């Protein structure tokens, strides 16, 4: 199978290269500009990375990375032959036919002495050992959230990052999203919401439990000894790791973490308490009915109530729900104040601003585009609006043009900006938008919610709980 595939790939590559070398350009009389290939050719500015974990999330990141200039994937690592073939194949067809493919992370670190960074997109429980080893090896790390499924491990990553002096970016990609950055300015600089008193957010996504895809798993099965070596009891545990407490934190870390992170960021403070509820009743019944071969441990839904004491707005109550048994309403966050409210989502069409009738007229109000969503009429959530009303244009202002480009990326490539921030930080051009200590704060928010839901007790939190000594 793999030999055939390699052969096919080699043929494709050969065809492509042969064709391009054979193709003769006819320039005619038109002025032609020769391509400046050196701009994207490997050089001293090229960041060399290892891609660790090419599963569902890793594939998303890799597909973006392959479109970023001056980043070169030198190595791909995954214990699954399916992911190795997929990831390695993509990189070979891009700008590095010599990419090395590994099954063992330690072997990759030992052999690859010329890497600048690793991108880690493995199950949560592997984040700590993999990140800490990479940092100790002198590499910068982009690690998917959640930092870990335990706070002790997450804290260890912060400590390791400090000791290494290297960068550790956590994958809360909204932190690099200009729409969310705009929301911060809107609430704090422009006081659009007035005093924020209540926040809510949700991520509802129907996630049926289904048996493993039998044919696919048979074709790409992982030997049992390899599974066990890496902590998995079976192929089902490996494939559906998000349902197991020993690997993950359930929907509150898988999905909720992104949004509770926004709560704390836009309120400028971590919460002072959390009370949460949840269970896995539906998932357990569904798993049994559908004969999926395992009993789900993580919750299929969690509802959390947070209290904040925001330095900007005062006391704020926040409600959050993450539900895997219904897709109703999708995902968004709403910040409500006595002058207005802001609804934000990575789905742009869900974002809007509502001004209360009692609030003063806004300076740009007559130029703002009105939108109606679900019966509510408000303003389009547009970070460029306030600047455009000052008569600036993208053509005349490079900063605006750059913002426009970022906004377009944010509409469809939500992870790309976060990766670009990581690479820019490595070059010293930007600061990380989600460094380790920020990622740790969010890990506390969601793992404490899980703890509350398990114990049935409200948990009081202090600022010290969010800091690693």
């Amino acid at each position: 199978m793999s030999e055939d595939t390699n052969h096919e790939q080699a043929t494709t590559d050969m065809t492509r290269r042969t064709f391009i070398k054979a193709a003769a350009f006819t320039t005619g009389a038109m002025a032609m500009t020769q391509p400046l290939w050196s701009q994207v050719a490997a050089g001293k500015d090229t960041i060399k990375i290892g891609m660790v974990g090419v599963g569902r999330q890793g594939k998303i990141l890799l597909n973006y990375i392959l479109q970023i200039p001056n980043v070169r994937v030198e190595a791909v690592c995954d214990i699954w032959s399916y992911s190795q073939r997929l990831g390695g194949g993509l990189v070979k067809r891009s700008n590095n036919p010599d990419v090395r493919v590994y099954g063992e992370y330690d072997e990759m670190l030992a052999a690859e002495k010329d890497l600048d960074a690793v991108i880690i997109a493995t199950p949560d429980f592997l984040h700590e050992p993999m990140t800490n080893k990479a940092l100790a090896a002198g590499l910068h790390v982009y690690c998917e959230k959640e930092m870990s499924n335990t706070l002790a491990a997450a804290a260890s990553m912060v400590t390791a990052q400090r000791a290494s002096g290297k960068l550790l970016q956590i994958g809360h990609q909204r932190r690099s999203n200009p729409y969310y950055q705009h929301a911060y300015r809107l609430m704090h600089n422009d006081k659009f919401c007035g005093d924020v008193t209540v926040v809510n957010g949700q991520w509802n996504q129907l996630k049926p439990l289904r048996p493993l895809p039998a044919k696919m798993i048979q074709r790409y099965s992982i030997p049992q000894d390899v599974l066990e070596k890496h902590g998995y009891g079976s192929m089902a545990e490996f494939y559906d790791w998000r349902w197991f407490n020993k690997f993950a934190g359930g929907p509150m870390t898988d999905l909720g973490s992104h949004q509770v992170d926004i709560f704390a960021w836009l309120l400028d403070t971590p919460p002072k308490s959390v009370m949460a509820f949840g269970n896995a009743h539906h998932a357990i019944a569904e798993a049994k009915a559908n004969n999926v071969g395992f009993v789900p441990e993580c919750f299929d839904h969690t509802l959390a109530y947070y209290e904040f004491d925001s330095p900007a707005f005062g006391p704020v109550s926040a409600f959050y729900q993450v539900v895997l048994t219904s897709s109703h309403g999708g995902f968004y966050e709403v910040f409500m104040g006595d002058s207005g409210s802001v609804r934000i989502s990575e789905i742009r069409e869900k974002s809007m601003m509502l001004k209360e009738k009692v609030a003063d007229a806004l300076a740009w109000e007559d130029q703002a585009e009105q939108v109606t969503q679900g019966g509510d009429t408000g303003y389009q959530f547009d970070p460029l609006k306030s600047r455009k009303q000052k008569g600036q244009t993208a053509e005349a202002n490079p900063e605006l043009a750059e913002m426009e480009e970022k906004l377009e990326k944010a509409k469809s490539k939500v992870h790309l900006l976060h990766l670009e921030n990581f690479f820019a930080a490595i070059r010293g051009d930007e600061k990380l938008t989600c460094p380790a200590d920020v990622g740790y704060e969010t890990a506390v928010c969601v793992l404490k919610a899980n703890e509350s839901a398990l114990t049935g007790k409200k948990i009081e939190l202090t600022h010290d709980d969010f800091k690693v000594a």
Partner: protein
Amino acid sequence: MAIEGRDPHSVGAEPPDWAGPGANALRFKHRAMACDFEFYFYDEQMNDAQQAAEAAFEEIDRLEALLSYFKPTSNVSRLNVSPAGEPVVFHPDAFDCLVLAKEISELTGGAYDPTVGPLLGDREPWDFDEKETGERWAPPGVGGVPHVGVALLALNAELCAAARMTDGVRVDLGSIGKGAAIDAAAAVLRDWGVGSAMLVAGRSTMMPIGLPPSRDAWRMRLRDPQDEATLIDTVALEAGAISASSVVGDGHVLDPRTGEAVGEVRGAWAVAPGAAESDALATAFMVLDDEAAERLVELREHAGAFRVDRTGEGRAFGAWASLRDDVEGP
């Protein structure tokens, strides 16, 4: 285009008969690239089929995000606004499409041309071969039109990058986008162990995986694009892909080489090992003369075509003759 039995508005009403009588399929449908993508699985359990289809549909969406002429962040759009000479790094899947488009363009002397955009004015590329309004349009003035021709594109395979060699040239891979998406989806489905399936994009591109459960080939009946009651030809497809291109109503097709509308061919079907290639060939066959068409199929392994002119007369090229199915289907 009319391939037998397909009506994008009534999917699920009547099972297509390309797999033979009594062949039951699991069907999945997904909207992307301004058309319906449909999968028909013949040997799958629902659980496997469903998960495989979802993975393949995600792949189609991924290809659309890379190839779209309209999404500002697609690889194609980034190239179209890049300063002349400045390289744009492409995803390898998008780059392969660009290479194929350039290759077919050069082999056809520009009869197929992914840079024909400036000749089309503001027409929407995705709609180009699916325009349903039937409205007639005239190409803009074309005397010595600049900015058209793949020679204005520089590709670098080692860097997986492309550059425009002059401002103004505009790339549109819409003519092969559906085929490229079908190719990518088929790769995923094969990976997932799907052994017998038919993949359809709109009414213009189809690609089988394996063979039907109880037949030695997929029997496709091709209908006159302007009169679907009229049977044009019947082929038995064992592998590869088939694509169609046609004019709508009294419309015309633009010859990128001259900028002039041509109307001699009213429908062309092409077969090739891959669907992106068959898409490109079908488009090219709308404007190539017979001699050039013969040369083209000679240069492309396993390629063939059939086309019908305004008078209803048909002519086969290359591998097409060997695909003809003498036995009328059920």
